């Protein structure tokens, strides 16, 4: 009974984590940019959604679309104005990481000045649970997040396998020169990667703003989950990242079943460590690339 409820909760949480992680994995996998500011995209989308829907009383779909668009613009501009100048000087992984972290710190504090440090959320009856039989409860938004995650994976699989841009994106991570040889522009492709990766985090941001509420510092956790999921799944594998997110969500929820509720947070990182120690290439990773 409790186990079933925790399983259901874990699925919903895992779907949200998967949505966060896939965007990060997309960007990291194809451009090799350690995009710490992915969490910032999440926070910006969430706060803008909150501002438009709750303060300006725009219809939720318009607010959501505008917020998601802003997230995409943020990601693309970061790539163009920050990552590219650094990479031009052959900046290493860590140089990029520090800069990305810097942006996260700046954005977080600008939001604190604008909205205050306290938590915001959007009240909607959709977050209230109802009984689906046997005492198991689910909310509409919970179901929506599972559905959205499933649909996006189907879409992504199609996109990466069947479209030219998708195939080129996959090739970019393996061999940029090859992409160039085929007359494609790696810069342009990297913009696509940032646009799509940023767009992918939007549904998670929108749902979480309603369900758990949002704080200016929420981005760090999003990035941690994303990185952990990417590593569990195997760097470069989108399927892996999605599955990794799902595993983390389930683990966090099910940990409560037998353990004290105090440890649910640490479980994710214990799993991450287990993977780093036992299988650093992750579930779907390419061993040779580690």
């Amino acid at each position, binding site marked *: 009974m409790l186990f079933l409820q925790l399983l259901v909760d874990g699925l919903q949480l895992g779907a949200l984590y998967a949505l966060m992680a896939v965007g990060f994995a997309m960007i990291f996998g194809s451009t090799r940019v*350690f995009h710490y500011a992915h969490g910032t995209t999440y926070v910006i989308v969430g706060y803008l959604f909150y501002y438009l829907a709750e303060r300006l009383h725009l219809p939720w779909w318009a607010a959501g679309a505008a917020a998601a668009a802003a997230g995409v613009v943020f990601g693309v501009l970061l790539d163009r104005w*920050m990552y590219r*100048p*650094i990479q031009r*000087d*052959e*900046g*290493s*992984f*860590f*140089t*990029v*990481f*520090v*800069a990305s*972290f*810097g*942006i*996260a*710190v*700046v954005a*977080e*504090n*600008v939001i*604190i*000045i604008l909205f205050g440090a306290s938590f915001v959320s959007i009240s909607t009856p959709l977050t209230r649970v109802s009984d689906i039989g046997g005492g198991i409860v689910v909310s509409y938004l919970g179901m929506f997040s599972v559905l959205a995650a499933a649909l996006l994976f189907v879409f992504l699989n199609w996109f990466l396998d069947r479209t030219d841009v998708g195939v080129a994106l996959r090739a970019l991570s393996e061999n940029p020169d090859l992409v160039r040889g085929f007359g494609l522009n790696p810069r342009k492709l990297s913009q696509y990667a940032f646009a799509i990766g940023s767009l992918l985090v939007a549904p998670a941001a929108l749902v979480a703003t309603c369900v758990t509420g949002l704080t200016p510092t929420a981005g*760090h956790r999003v990035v*941690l989950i994303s*990185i*952990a999921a990417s*590593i569990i799944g195997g*760097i470069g594998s989108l399927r892996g990242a999605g599955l990794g997110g799902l595993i983390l969500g389930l683990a966090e929820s099910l940990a409560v079943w037998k353990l004290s509720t*105090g*440890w649910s*947070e*640490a479980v994710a*990182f*214990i799993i*991450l*460590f287990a993977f*780093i*120690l036992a299988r*650093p290439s992750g579930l779907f990773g390419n061993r040779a690339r*580690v």
Partner: protein
Amino acid sequence: MVGYILNLLILISISGILAGSLNFIIGYAGIYSLAHAAFFGIAAYTGALIALHVSTSLLIAIPVAMAICAILSLVISLPSLRVRGEYFVVASLGLQMIAFTVFSEWTSVTGGLGGITGVPVATIFGFSLRSLGSMLAVSLACLALVTFAIFALVRTSFGRNLRAIRDNEVAAAAFGKNVALTKTLAVAISSALCAVAGVLYAFHVSFVNPESFTIDASVLVMAMIIIGGTGTVFGPILGALIIHLLPAGLTYLTFLPSRDLASLQQIIYGAAMVLLMIYRPSGLIGRANVKDTWSK
């Protein structure tokens, strides 16, 4: 006034030790750790517990904390160092999170979020460091010793091996260097030196709780060495100086809204990190051959 400046200088010395020890692995060995605050915390708790239950002598607390930090770092770094670059960063990030959980959950030892209060005044050779001046003298001496130790270490063959690994790990391995052993030792040394800062902090503030050892603290230390300059002897100290003086300076700009001061500080750190990475990745007093330092 004098007391305020002395206190600030003590904190700067402690941060200088922290930054210097982190610089040892980031700047010279190319090992990027986000778990420095975790070791800082382990040392601070060790120092506080020793002070409360065993002895208030720095000559006991510091060596014990150094040994504990070095051993714990081995446990963690041995497996993590099997992987490279980004993996170690992530592993250290995870370690930082787990350390915070342990600090706040292991209540019987750490006092949980409430922390450990009433750490007694430190002594050295039986001489009490009750006055801020004597505490500062000891902190400065520790800073000098740690800085000198790092300065000397990087000039030994061990230091040369480290730089060889930093600049090209594959080539270093090909030349028969034991890469894993060298890196592991470097992490252990860095953690042990960091322990000096942790113990001093516990005695100086006389209160230890998990909030001082979060990921934010790790980042702040990183910001110090990045702003000052990685791979230089005095860069980390300069960084520590800037990071501590900035907030103190900002409070005198009375036209700034005081409620937003802390946020403004953070924005300045963040922006400095971004701009430095774009225009001067070697930091304020870093070496000129930037590309050589940072490319893999």
